[in-house]
């Protein structure tokens, strides 16, 4: 199972990096989303995959008697998902605004903040 997941993670990373190298901002965003999912699966795999019961203490009991799944990776992934979701929501709005304001989704043409051919500073004093 770990092997299969590791292969899948690798595939995800490959796709994500391929997309992130594109110059269209929307592709970069999609790449980032896949990147985030790949990371989540990495954490999931790192937490040792076992077929166990959820780590919930039954009502009335003080402790769990059986083997339980590791709750920590799930908590971590959940946190990471929440964060990457909000991040992505923000980036989506930003990309949309950029497309509207700058009239392009090509990062090569986004040079408003750093205009090309800027003059050098005055050299004399």
């Amino acid at each position, binding site marked *: 199972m770990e092997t299969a997941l590791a292969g899948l993670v690798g595939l995800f990373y490959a796709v994500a990096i391929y997309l*992130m190298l594109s110059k269209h*901002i929307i592709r*970069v965003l999609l790449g*980032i989303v896949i*990147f*985030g999912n790949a*990371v989540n699966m*990495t*954490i999931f*795999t*790192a*937490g*040792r995959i076992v*077929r*166990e*019961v959820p*780590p919930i*203490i039954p009502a009335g009991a*003080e*402790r*769990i*008697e*059986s*083997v*339980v799944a590791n709750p*920590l*990776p799930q908590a*971590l992934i959940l*946190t*990471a998902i929440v*964060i*990457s979701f*909000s*991040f992505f929501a*923000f*980036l989506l709005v*930003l*990309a949309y*605004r*950029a497309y509207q*304001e*700058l009239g392009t989704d090509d*990062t090569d043409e*986004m*040079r*408003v*903040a*750093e205009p090309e051919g*800027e*003059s*050098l*500073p*005055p050299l004399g*004093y």
Partner: protein
Amino acid sequence: MAAPGATSIDTAAAHIAGATALADWLVIAPVALPILGGALLLMVRHRTRVHAVLAFLFLFASFLSSAFLLARVVSEGPLVMTMGRWLPPFGITFNADVLGATFATAATFVATVAAVFALRDINVTGRRYGFYSFLLLMVAGVDGAFLTGDIFNLYVWFEVFVISSFGLLVLGSERRQIDGATKYAVLNLVATTVFLITTGMLYGTFGTLNMADIARKAEGLRETGPLMTIATLYLLAFGMKAAAFPLNYWLPASYHTPRIVTSALFGGLLTKVGIYALLRTMMTLFPVEREVLSGLIGWIAVATMLLGILGALAQSDVRRIIGFVVISGIGVMLSGLALGTPLGVTGTILYAVHSILVMTALYLLAGLMHEAGGSYSLHETAGLYRSHPLLAAMALLLVLAAAGLPPLSGLWPKVMLVKASIESGAWWLASAILVSSILTVIALGRVFALSFWRMDAGETVERTDAERAISPGAGYGVLAALIVPAIAIGVYPEPFLRLAAAAAAGLADPASYLDAVFPPGGGS
């Protein structure tokens, strides 16, 4: 599905039994207070009048609490609080050591001062948009990063301040800002994702996320675990955040676009969090791996400081010059990390504190120059010395400070770093630091010469005096508040040196840190 070797988890044993003293709440106060303040400001977003006052109060309170925290940590050793009574590795630990508390104090001080400056810079629309809420949340994120003892929690705080910084960055929604913010956001997202990947691998290797626990377990895993990979990836992730070469071009592309007070906070605080994280991971968690990587870090440091300052020489916009100066400073800080000797790390820590103060002050100075001269461009400003002598004096002081000349705060850390590199036989590093200092003098000296001394610009710009400042005095006061501690570090360095040395000692020898998280005889 009863597997062999079934273990049961006793919840009672996973809890901390003892009560927590009220004074221990000091650990989370620098984080919790800004969060509460930010939330409160979001709730009263229409009452823009109270925003500044509330923000100032909350920031000042968190500054006071982090200062008290620092005092307590210095006298009694690291202070620990575990959230929700769950013992590590399940519970998230906040622990303040000298390093974290020092950085938190400097950060909250700068933020408080910037909140005052924002009175001039941010109008009602900006306040309604939530400038102060974002400011407070960003401070909470930065403080959280400084004070947390859990590496995943560090990631969370990184994200908190990065997301808040997005909010600050696009405030005003000019085209330039959106352009800068896009690059900033994508690069930062990639950096934090690399951070997360590494943390995942770290968890897979150690089975814990508590930094003290990792440091304890790293000894046993050095032979087998992929620690080298993890350390390198952390170097990559935090290097990206700290704007180290070659992953630093997002900084000059974005830092000059927002409001000047936002630029000041970014330049002062955000890159330093990257430096802090590098110090923490490299020195406490992976000291052996850092040893191996030190050559690489050293070259990165040299490239960052030299290319950064060369970039500054080619700019004509004051804010972009300062952006490159910030990068150059990162290189100087990295050199101490590359050396790894107590003296070098002490120098790095002191330089970071100096940089928090001075870079913020430089950006604010640029804002005041813009107000006085009507432009950020060196082509278009001249003769400010005549019209604004006080500003010129402060500018001169700041140039000296940034270049590391006496009698200001930049001197001592650079002296220490140079001395440390010579002690370690790294002449190239020492000479790079010196060369970059000279170039800084040239780059910033030119700003001073052109904008203040030069009598008359070749091409004068139409002065747009439509939005005059509320009162120039407040701006000067704010600048002075930042320069005074910088002078204090410069002329009376002993207590600061002792503080930085204590921080470096705690970093290099994590025993006291470990004892605070895992008290001998107790815990898991």
